[in-house]
């Protein structure tokens, strides 16, 4: 019995010893490393020289994706993924708030307030926009921090990669400047922070004047390092994108700073036009599933990517294509999505439809309006059978096929395209920026001709009102309208009222402070340097 017990004890002791050894106390165990197959320690990530392009890809990806774990994931906490997708929220804030579109499902967070112009600082779409855009800024800053000469030296990066990195850095700075441009336009303020500031440090506030100065100087500084127009890979920014943003801020300079810069605007539109772009052979090509390969590649200056296989997102094109399918018409199949689409989520406000009235526009390719038996008046927003619809956007290809996925479309969103530049030239000219009326009229006529509309424009026809209307006909549903109306003084005030403006079914005047959106209350709460806009 004693032997057996001793044997048992020895067995137990050995077992215990083995267990102790397997649990060996190493305080080194406290130095953990990520175990997930998709997460890497910074130092391990940069061991591979492909990291830099991948990191740049991450900065760009923030323009289309809300997170990297599928379309439902979001790096902005506390919001549905859909309320912080950059392009979609840009589209809501610039288009839905004006006279071109209306959204049927007002239970969707934030949409009711935006489309009826009754928004407050608590609106989740504003929180999403502010947060998402500042994310691009922080990713760009991080990219710049990790690609300084000192860091690249220390990591022994090859000289060929270092040359490429110069261009990458310019592109990151461009995306950062573009983000500040949108903040200047939408909120009139931004939290200003660069790669020289430490992570987690408190950004200071820049108002419109300061943002204008920064964006202008930044874009000019990086010009030399950017690739020439149309010489970079598809989806990556080049000199033309920088010139486009400059042209935009100069066009709107009176709104942003009180001083006009139309001459500079005209100069840059000329530079873009001289960069080798040309109009797509058909208007519709710009808005189809293959607009990354069809003739639209000549016209689109900067796209936001969407793809049914690789870039799933509830972005502007996914929303607009699924949304424009009519509740009565169920015409989704031809548009490359499910037959019923989203049951009539998006319809047109009357004022927009009226821009295409008359014989002048009956054959215009830009007129994709379907009226059917519908009532043009929308008295009840939730009644999806009222109001006309359109079929501008499509997930079908120019060769008769359809996109790879019925829900997540292949159609890229053209943030900037040549047609816009033509219109900007004409407007800058009319506002005294130089150029000639003949050229301006010629550009507008080109747009009409391209749209199979034989009614061309002569110098005598040119007027600012024509420009405003023509911009709507050409660029509707492309996130420009609010900016245009503000520049023309027609967004707030009562000079132009559209259906449901200010929550009145025929539109009522908006107070002038509504020309900028309020800073989201959560952003104010987390940064004491930010102050709320007047009137909110």
């Amino acid at each position, binding site marked *: 019995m004693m032997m057996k017990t001793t044997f048992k004890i020895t067995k137990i002791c050995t077992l*215990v010893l083995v267990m*102790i050894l397997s649990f060996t*106390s190493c*305080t080194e*165990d*406290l*130095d953990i490393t*990520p*175990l*997930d197959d998709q*997460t*890497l320690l910074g*130092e391990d*990530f940069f061991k591979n020289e492909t990291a830099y392009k*991948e990191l740049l890809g*991450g900065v*760009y*990806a923030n323009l*289309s*994706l809300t997170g*990297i*774990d*599928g*379309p439902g994931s979001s*790096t*902005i*906490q*506390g*919001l549905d993924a859909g309320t912080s997708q950059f392009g979609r929220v840009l589209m809501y804030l610039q288009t839905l708030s004006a006279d071109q579109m209306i959204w049927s*499902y007002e239970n969707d967070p*934030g949409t009711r307030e935006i489309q009826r112009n009754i928004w407050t600082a*608590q609106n989740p779409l504003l929180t999403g926009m502010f*947060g998402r855009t*500042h*994310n691009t*800024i*922080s990713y760009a800053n*991080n990219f710049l921090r990790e690609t300084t000469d000192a860091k690249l030296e220390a990591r022994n990066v090859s000289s060929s990669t270092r040359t490429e990195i110069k261009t990458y850095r310019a592109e990151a700075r461009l995306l950062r400047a573009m983000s500040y441009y949108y903040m200047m336009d939408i909120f009139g303020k*931004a939290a*200003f922070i660069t790669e020289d500031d430490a*992570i*987690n*440090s*408190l950004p200071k506030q820049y108002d419109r004047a300061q943002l204008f100065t920064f964006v202008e100087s930044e874009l000019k500084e990086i010009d030399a390092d950017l690739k020439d127009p149309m010489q970079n*890979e*598809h989806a990556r920014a080049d000199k033309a994108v920088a010139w486009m943003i400059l042209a935009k801020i100069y066009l709107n300079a009176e709104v942003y700073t009180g001083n006009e810069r139309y001459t500079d605007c005209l100069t840059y539109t000329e530079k873009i036009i001289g960069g080798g772009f040309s109009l797509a052979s058909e208007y519709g090509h710009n808005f189809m599933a293959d607009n990354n390969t069809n003739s639209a590649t000549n016209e689109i200056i900067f796209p936001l*990517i969407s793809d049914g*296989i*690789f*870039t799933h997102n509830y972005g502007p094109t996914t929303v607009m294509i*699924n949304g424009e399918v009519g509740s009565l018409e*169920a015409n989704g199949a031809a548009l490359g999505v499910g037959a019923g689409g989203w*049951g009539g989520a998006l319809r047109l406000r009357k004022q927009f439809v009226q821009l295409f009235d008359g014989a002048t526009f009956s054959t215009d390719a830009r007129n994709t309006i379907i009226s059917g038996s519908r009532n043009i008046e929308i008295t009840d927003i939730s009644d999806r059978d009222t109001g006309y619809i359109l079929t501008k956007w499509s997930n079908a290809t120019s060769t008769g096929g359809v996109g790879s*996925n019925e*829900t997540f479309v292949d159609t890229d969103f053209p943030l900037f395209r040549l047609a816009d530049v033509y219109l900007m030239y004409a407007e800058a000219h009319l506002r005294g920026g130089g150029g000639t009326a003949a050229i301006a009229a010629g550009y507008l006529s080109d747009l009409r001709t391209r749209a199979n509309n034989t009614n061309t424009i002569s110098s005598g026809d040119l007027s600012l009102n024509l420009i405003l209307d023509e911009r709507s006909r050409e660029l509707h549903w492309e996130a420009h309208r609010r900016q245009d109306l503000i520049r023309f003084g027609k967004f707030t005030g009562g000079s132009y009222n559209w259906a449901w403006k200010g929550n009145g079914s025929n539109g009522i005047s908006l107070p002038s402070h509504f020309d900028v959106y309020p800073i989201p209350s*959560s*952003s104010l*709460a*987390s940064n*004491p340097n930010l102050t709320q806009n007047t009137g909110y």
Partner: protein
Amino acid sequence: MLSSLSMFAQQTLTGIVRDLTAGENLPGVNVVVKGTTNGTSTDFDGKFQLKNIKTGDVLVFSYLGYLNKEVTIDINFNITVNLTEDSQKLDEVVIIGYGTTTLKDATGSVEAITAKDFTKGNIVTPENLLSGRVAGVNITTSGAPGSGSQITIRGGSSLGASNAPLIVIDGLPIDNNGTAGSRGILANINPNDIESFSILKDASATAIYGSRASNGVIIIVTKKGKNEFTLDYDTQYSFGKVTDRVDVFSADEYRAFVNSQPISGTTLDTSLLGTANTNWQDEILQSTLSTQHNFTVKGSILNKIPTRVSLGFSNQEGAILTSQFNRVNFSLAMNPTFFKDHLKIGLNYNRAHEDSRFAAGGIGAALRYDPTHPVRVPGTPYGGYYQHYTTTTDGFVLSNGTTNPVASILQSTNTGNVFRQYGNLNLDYKFHFLPELKAVLNLGFDKTEGTYNNVSSLYGPRSWNTDVNGNDSSGSQNRENKLLDGYLNYTKTFNDIKTDLTAGYSYQKFTNAGFNGRNLRDPNGISDAYAATDVVLIGYFGRANFTFLEKYLLTLSYRRDGTSRFSEENRWGNFPAAAFAWRISDEDFLKDSKVISELKLRASYGITGQQDIPNNEIYLSTYRFGNTNSRYIFGGNPIQSTIPQAINPDIKWEETATLEFGLDYGLFDNKFTGSIGVFQKNSTDLLFNAPVADGSNFTNSIVQNIGELEVKGLEFTLNTDIIKNDDTNWNLNFNATYLDRKIKKLALGQDVTTGGVAGGTGNTVQLFREGFAPNSFYVYKQLYDTAGNPIEGAYLDRTGDGIINGEDRYLKESPGADVTLGMQSSFSYKNFDIAFNLRASIGNYNYNNVNSSQAQLSLLQDNAVLGNIPTSVLDTNFKVTSDVILSDMYIENASFLKMDNITLGYTFDRPFKAFTTNSVRLWAGVQNVFTLTNYSGLDPEVFNGIDNLIFPRSRTFLLGANIKF
């Protein structure tokens, strides 16, 4: 002559010592002839033998936890002695961190609850055993069967890091995080296997656990092996029913109401009304039948190893249709000793299999759905369930709005399956050459493997923005926790000073990995395997106990903990503690007092730490690249887009310093015992997921050390045996806790919004602000008209600037109670016993999110269909949710008094004559007996104060039997 001679003859006495109530023989009982050294102790079977005994000798029997008994020997030299348990628990052994003490010697704030004190009733999970029983311990359970609870001790110490106490099972601190498919971390422990709980509340008691101990520690000890053979069978059957409903319109009332339109300006489409009468809450709630069976066998294997084996089966139905929880537990405990008790080995092994079905839906949809339509309509394209839909040329399209709640539940099968094993091997070796020194080694593990499976019917309703037909996905998760603890303990008395020194080392590692399968019905779905970064905790600890003259006690402890969650500079935390106790009742001036039988003054101060945040590597600079569907495309080629993860390199320990004074008392020969305690806890560097400035980090909110929290409190406990004699026993326990929680400091003095609510978009209704209780409600002040009716959307303009905006909100009350009370009483007369437990909470407020987000007339329109709303809307006639959701009229006083349990039992003593000892107790009881409250919602007990429909709690009737052999 002969008899008087025999009276003085020395003989050998044999006997057996037993426990009167438990019916067990007691080993190790001291038997000594009074006034001599002639003594022995009882063996494994409770038997003893003493030589040289003569008639007239007085034998003294003493045993820890039992009242001493003196027996005068008459002519019988073979005796049976019955000892009764000492209900004054001061000599009871109490488990503390890495050791034991007795309540008598405890310097810290410790409460021990053993099996006989446990709350009786429908006990499914271990927390139920403590409900309302211990001052300062608050347990909020969900109504879902087998579900986990929120436990807080003294209000917790954190804002954002876990407020949950550290739970240690047989020396193994367990992971506070749940596993996929499981209902909660304590859900698979059979309460029947639990021997005792030790609740450590103050810093001195908890500091030895260092990290994770800021919120208190609950030590669970499972039942051990015994030598004597016993067999127990416990069974219970329970029948439950939810009796409360939220008041919404009935079908007839609804039809009348809608037809009486226009209702404040809006016109509803009356053609959407149906002709049926459905009470949707009744339709989704069910009466429940639940059963439990537990078998326990104790005995000695090979006559050497005391063993306990138990097997338990539990089947619980939930109040909502399809909700189900089944568990099978197996537990093994072996406690052999070797080398004359020099080596004690404890082996515990537990296994649990848990099977749950989770109801895919809740009361929310039942409140909302139009009552004028039936549950089922034969021939609908939705599997025969009624849904609102329109037929188009292409087929049928679901109308936008709430969907049939019965269909949601019955057309989904969401199940979870958990297999858990945990156990430990404890070696306790008293050195042969130096018996004052002992070495303890504890190896423990806890492994949970969970899987879940969610499948919905192909005929379920599909919403407007998706082509995917329902859900068919499954996944798994594995959590593992390994522990190695070792310590040396030295006890010796030097002159008058009893010394007890302990020093040790602890290593613990947590791993977690899993897999979330894609939705098989979604061609875009992606599966994802994930692995969390390991968490490693290493600690060095030491404690010294000094007892001078048995009256003055001093405890000093120190622990140094390192965690893998923080960077090297911030990784190590130091947690010292000191406690002093003075047994005043042992002083000469009180020793013979008739009134005060027990008086001990305690003072303690200590620092504990907290590092339990959901992120395991937030201080590291890490990058993450996307799934195959989350890539950008350059030049037609997808690129593995990589983004930097949110980072906080400076994250460090949250520390809580606790100062406590306590008085343990016993009056009138310990007829009344209890304690009074006053304490203050200051937590600094609170870990909290707080908003971070846009652009400064890679997200908008990150865990940071942001502030200071102060908790002050007062605890009072009273135990009394009002009547105690052979036939009758009446025992009462009363405890009261007063808590005052206040945020002292927040980063940059900035408020932090919290407490998201349903209804409207992105609204929050609570706030952290310096100087106020955490989670205080942040609302507008409602204005009323002269008749006392609230005016919709009219709030007081507190800033007087003409605009109603965020600055006009104010802080009103908070969800934390000011005072919580608990009372438990048990009464027994001969073979009858009755017990009940009451709990009260005073000063806790709730935000009635049901009324605030649903009682508005515009909600009669539910997107494209009609929807039901609470009848409380008639009190206010409010129209639009967003106008009223942040009003202070929805903050209600939710103070309550609840009786959790009342049970009545009857014990048959030895009903089976064939066996020497046995007993059968039959009992009946009610659980969730009554709730008294002024709160208008369904249940005042809502953990965070935001009442958005908790899982309904049933009232349950129980019948059970405890059979012991």
